[in-house]
């Protein structure tokens, strides 16, 4: 999977592309862990280029959201669509994470 990190004044945006599955989710987890260790508390995950997510990806996002919550931080989601959005809805994750059309809307909420 591809990952691109953009730092903004209010949050760190991490764009995920390709597949977030049992093989690749650990890479994403490490990247999030590093961002949090470096002091990021508000992380926007941009799913625009993500084609596929399985429970391994969901677990990674949830585990890091728990860490951030204990630091008074949060994970925000942007550009959820198609099959990825469907997985979020089935698992009920669409009700526990703030979801925005795009990263600008997510940033504006902070």
């Amino acid at each position: 999977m591809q990952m691109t990190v953009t730092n903004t004044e209010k949050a760190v945006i991490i764009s995920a592309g390709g597949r977030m599955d049992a093989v690749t989710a650990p890479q994403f987890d490490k990247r999030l862990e590093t961002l949090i260790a470096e002091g990021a508390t508000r992380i926007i995950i941009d799913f625009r280029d993500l084609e596929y997510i399985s429970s391994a990806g969901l677990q990674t996002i949830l585990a890091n959201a728990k860490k951030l919550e204990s630091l008074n931080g949060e994970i925000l989601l942007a550009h959820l669509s198609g099959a990825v959005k469907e997985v979020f809805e089935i698992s009920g994750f669409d009700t526990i994470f703030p979801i925005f059309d795009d990263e600008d809307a997510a940033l504006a909420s902070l």
Partner: protein
Amino acid sequence: MLTITSPASITNLEKLLTQVSDWLGSNGLTRRQTAKIELSLEEALVNVCRYAYHGGQGDVEVRCRITDGRDCLIEIIDSGIPFDACAHPAPELTACIADRKVGGLGVYLMRNMADQMTYRRENEKNILNLAFRTVPDRNDGAAASPQRP
């Protein structure tokens, strides 16, 4: 029909999923249908790779076939410890982030993506069957009902 036998290891996951997806595509399934099946299969295979052999070695077999009624049937077979995914409790879906358990979602996703999921233990093997309808039922609910195993 496609039959693949492979060591049950996460390192083989991508190869297995690609083989099955390619086969489904060559049998006329749409990308959306294939993605749904692939997700269920990944969840099933990850369970086998992580838990069936208690960290030891063992094989997993995947059998795929398309029925005359255009149902896609996937069978996942392992010789590991008994595990009935059908009896696995559903996770708590409404808990907030702090209370939500990390894990337990794989079986739930698998069950939701498949139109039918059955399990049996036979000859010391776990046999999990996943069925996916690939043609929509007609509104009249008559002739278009796909065949069932």
